[in-house]
């Protein structure tokens, strides 16, 4: 059996003494798309941020994280990114005072390798033609959907093995949500592993291989999307009712 690309165990995150995440174990296989779903405050963003070693706050994080067999917990965010773990966070995604072209530049020269494709700027424009039309515009002039594309594009230019995406559909029109999620499926088809945090469960089920349900910072349900997608706990988490 091949080793999973990402393995996390015993990951705990606390803000000011309040525990936000208590993850016993999580794995993402090579080329696998894993969806993380859960109600607001379930710890979804905390999970992907902790894996990337990143946060806008100052949480206390512990636990073990390995990427491609290497321990990366304790590494700075830029080191994890260079190792192949890229995060596209929720919220502020682009440098507003830089053009789209400038946003699509990397701080380092990523190396191609097994399971790592370093996208060029031209490939990003091919993937998201809208960005090419707006290449001279400032980041702050872009719409929500364009910012999302730009955030994903920049992450792809760093040649990730695993892409962590936090709520890429938030605030987007349904048509754009479909477009972004279809792009993710295309990327997964090319071998990229993806850990997708998504509120829109129905849309997420369409693109993920496996689904993980978080409740109060703990995994309460996990399995193939087709199998667990209809579990009443999924609907309950979002609608507050029994399905």
């Amino acid at each position, binding site marked *: 059996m091949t080793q999973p690309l990402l393995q996390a165990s015993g990951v705990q995150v606390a803000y000011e003494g309040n525990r936000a995440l208590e993850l016993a174990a999580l794995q993402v296989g090579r080329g696998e798309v894993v969806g993380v779903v859960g109600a607001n405050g379930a710890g979804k963003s905390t999970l992907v941020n902790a894996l990337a070693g*990143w946060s806008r706050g*100052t949480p206390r994080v512990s636990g073990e994280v390995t990427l491609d067999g290497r321990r990366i917990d304790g590494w700075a965010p*830029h080191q994890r990114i260079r190792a192949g773990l890229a995060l*596209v966070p929720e919220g502020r995604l682009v*440098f507003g005072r*830089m053009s789209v072209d*400038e946003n699509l*530049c990397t701080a380092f020269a990523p190396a191609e390798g097994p399971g790592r494709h370093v996208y060029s700027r031209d490939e990003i424009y091919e993937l998201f033609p809208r960005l090419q039309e707006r290449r001279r515009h400032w980041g*702050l002039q872009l719409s929500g959907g364009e910012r999302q594309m730009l955030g994903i594009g920049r992450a792809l230019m*760093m040649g990730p093995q695993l892409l962590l995406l936090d709520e890429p559909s938030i605030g987007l029109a349904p048509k754009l949500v479909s477009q972004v999620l279809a792009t993710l499926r295309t990327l997964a088809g090319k071998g990229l592993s993806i850990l997708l945090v998504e509120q829109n469960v129905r849309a997420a089920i369409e693109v993920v291989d496996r689904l993980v349900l978080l409740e109060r910072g703990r995994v309460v349900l996990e399995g193939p999307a087709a199998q667990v997608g209809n579990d009443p706990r999924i609907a309950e988490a979002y609608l507050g009712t029994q399905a």
Partner: protein
Amino acid sequence: MNLTQQVINGLVLGHAYALVAIGWTLLLGVARLVNFGHGQMYMLGAFVTWWAVAKAGVPYLLAVPFAMLVGAAFGLVMQRVMLKATFEQNLVSIMIMTLGFGYVLHGGAALIFGSTGQILETSLSRHEFNFGDLWFTGQDLAIVVAAIVVFICLKWVLDGTRIGRLVRMVAEDPKLAQLAGVNVRRVYYGVFAFEGAAVAFAAGMVAPRTPILTSMGFEEVIMTFVVVVFGGIGSVKGSYFAGVALGLFTALFGALVSPAYTTAAAFLVLIALLVLRPGGLSAGVAGAH
């Protein structure tokens, strides 16, 4: 009173202000930090240059880079000590620590260099240019040329190079810059080293115009503050024009009204500007550098 001579004096003074402020422009623009030890770092740069020339017999043109190395090293030490506070943007701690560094520098310099004022003479400061009633020294000319060259270089580095792009990323959003693969810690170190080197360079250029005292630094930090805020925080172009404008204002106000009230008048103008244009001269210019 010779008005043209006052304009020349103002231009030289203005370029000196701009040169002294350039490190702070980047520091405030990138790290969103203030360095209240800036004036004492200027004093240190002036004394190191003087010591290298007068005591060690180093040629002036080598003494200035030597002072810049010392300044950069001091900037790195400061940043090492303040790194945690920098990441947390803990401005109160940083303000107190930089003030503390300033006082330590002041005390250390008094211990090493004594309290006697020193004069730094260079071949440039001895060389005078006379055009009728008008005159200026080679040092004055060097200050103007150096300020223009340094500002053009900084603007080019920030706008046109990879390093400049990384610095701008950190300036805008250090957390997001981490996710773009930027080693933010290294950028902070680089900015502090640049600030130390830049203020030492400014001191090496400007100090030959005035007596060098270990007690100096307060006026320099105040004027730097005015230039950086007046120009628009983080704006390289704004700082240059603000420095020149402040120099001209100081020279002309001093000649036409009274030198005693120049600083007070400059602050009145600054207050008025901040009321009318809170972002400074470059306010409203997206991505202004």
